[in-house]
C-alpha cells in the first residue's frame, strides 16, 4: 500500500476494479497539507468506502442524505466560523471538501449546491461525473450524454437511448458568480491536482467537475479508464478549462481533434449507434461537440 497516497483515503475500499473515483479523491485531498473535513453525497464513493463496520476514510467524514453534500459542507463552515468567533485566533479552521456524483450534483443535490454557493460558504465542491446512477445499475441522469443506452432509456427497435443533451452544469455554477471553477478529467491527474490547489486556496466557494469513466456501465474493460478519459478530451467531448473571476482559460488546446467515433466506439453503451439506422445520431453528437467547443473558444477569447 502506498503510504503517501493512502494518507486520507486508505486502500481496502470496495470500488469496482478499475474505477477512477479513488484516484480523483486522493489527488484532490493530496493537494493540501492542511486538515480537511469531507462531506459526501450518496453515490458510488459513499457506498464503497463506508461499508459497516469499516471505513476507508482517515479524515473526518460526514454523509447525511443523497442531495445534501453541499448543505452539510455549508453547516460545517458555519460551525467553524462560530467556533473561531468564540476562540479567536487559537482555532485554525479545516478545509472543507464535498464530494458528489453526477446524480447527487446535477439532479438531486442541485438546490443544496446552489444555496451553498449563493450564501458564499468557504468550501470546495467536487463532482465526479460518470454520467448516471452507476451504483444502482446505471439509470440516466442529467449528465448522461445524448444517445447513451442506459437502464431507464434502453436502446432498441424504437429508441436510440437518451434523447436529451447533457445539462451544462459549469454554466449553471458559473451563474452564481463564484471565484473559481474548473472542468477536469480523471485521466489527467496532474492537471486535476493543480486545479484542486487553486480551488482550495480560493476564499469562498469553488467547484470542480471531473470526468470519471465508469468501467461497469460505460462498458469497457477494467484496465481502460485512463485511455477512455484521454479520448474524451482528445475528441473535445470533455475539454479541460477553468474559469477564474469570469475569465475562461482552455488548458488543452487540441490542434487536430479526433472524430467523436473514436470515443464512442470504446464503450458498450454506444454500441447501438454504429448500426446503419443510427448514423444520424453520431452526426448529431459530433455537431453538438463542435458547437460547444466553438462556444467555449469564443468565451475564452472575449473574457
Amino acid at each position, binding site marked *: 500500500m502506498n*503510504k503517501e497516497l493512502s494518507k486520507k483515503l486508505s*486502500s481496502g475500499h*470496495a470500488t469496482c476494479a478499475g474505477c477512477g473515483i479513488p*484516484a480523483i479523491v486522493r489527488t484532490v485531498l493530496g493537494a493540501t497539507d492542511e486538515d480537511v473535513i469531507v462531506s459526501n453525497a450518496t453515490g458510488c464513493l459513499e457506498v464503497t468506502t463506508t461499508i459497516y463496520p*469499516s471505513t476507508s476514510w482517515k479524515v473526518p467524514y460526514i454523509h447525511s442524505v443523497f442531495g445534501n453534500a453541499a448543505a452539510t459542507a455549508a453547516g460545517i463552515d458555519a460551525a467553524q466560523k462560530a467556533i473561531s468567533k468564540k476562540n479567536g485566533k487559537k482555532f485554525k479552521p479545516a478545509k472543507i471538501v464535498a464530494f458528489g456524483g453526477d446524480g447527487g450534483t446535477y439532479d438531486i443535490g442541485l438546490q443544496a449546491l446552489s444555496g451553498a454557493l449563493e450564501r458564499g460558504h468557504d468550501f470546495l465542491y467536487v463532482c465526479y461525473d460518470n454520467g448516471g446512477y452507476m451504483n444502482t445499475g446505471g439509470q440516466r441522469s442529467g449528465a448522461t450524454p445524448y444517445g447513451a443506452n442506459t437502464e431507464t432509456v434502453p436502446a432498441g427497435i424504437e429508441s436510440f437511448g437518451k434523447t436529451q443533451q447533457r445539462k451544462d452544469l459549469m454554466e449553471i455554477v458559473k451563474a452564481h458568480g463564484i471565484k473559481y471553477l474548473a472542468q477536469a478529467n480523471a485521466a489527467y491527474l496532474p492537471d486535476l491536482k493543480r486545479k484542486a490547489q487553486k480551488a482550495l486556496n480560493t476564499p469562498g466557494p469553488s467547484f470542480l467537475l471531473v470526468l470519471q469513466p465508469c468501467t461497469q456501465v460505460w462498458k469497457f474493460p477494467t484496465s481502460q479508464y485512463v485511455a477512455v478519459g484521454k479520448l474524451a478530451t482528445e475528441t473535445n467531448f470533455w475539454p479541460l478549462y477553468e474559469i477564474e473571476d469570469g475569465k475562461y482559460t482552455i488548458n488543452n488546446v487540441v490542434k487536430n481533434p479526433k472524430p467523436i467515433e473514436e470515443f464512442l466506439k470504446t464503450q458498450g453503451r454506444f454500441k447501438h449507434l454504429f448500426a446503419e439506422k443510427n448514423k444520424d445520431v453520431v452526426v448529431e453528437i459530433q455537431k453538438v461537440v463542435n458547437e460547444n467547443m466553438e462556444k467555449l473558444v469564443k468565451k475564452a477569447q472575449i473574457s
Partner: protein
Amino acid sequence: MEKGGIIKHDLNKSPKTGNWRYVRPEVDASKCIGCTTCVLPCPDASIEMRRRSKEEKKISPKLAQEKEIADIDYEYCKGCGVCAQVCPMKAIVMKK
C-alpha cells in the same frame, strides 16, 4: 462503534481486496524505468516505488542507474490492469 456514532478507520476491519484479483500484474525489472506513471492512477494505491534489489540490478545493468522500481501490494491490488495499460515501457504484464 464509539459514542456519537463515530467509526474510526481500522485497516484490519477493511476487506482485503486482493482476493478479487484473477489476473496478476507483474513488474518486469528489465523494462521498468521508474517513471512513476502507474502510481497515481492506481485505484487502490497499491503501487509504491522502491529501491532495486541486487538481483534486479544484475538483470539490467543499464537500468540499474535508475534508482527505483514499481512495487505492487498484492494484498489490496484488485487486478484491474490500469497500471499495465498506462505503462509507457509495457513493463507491467497481467498474468493469469
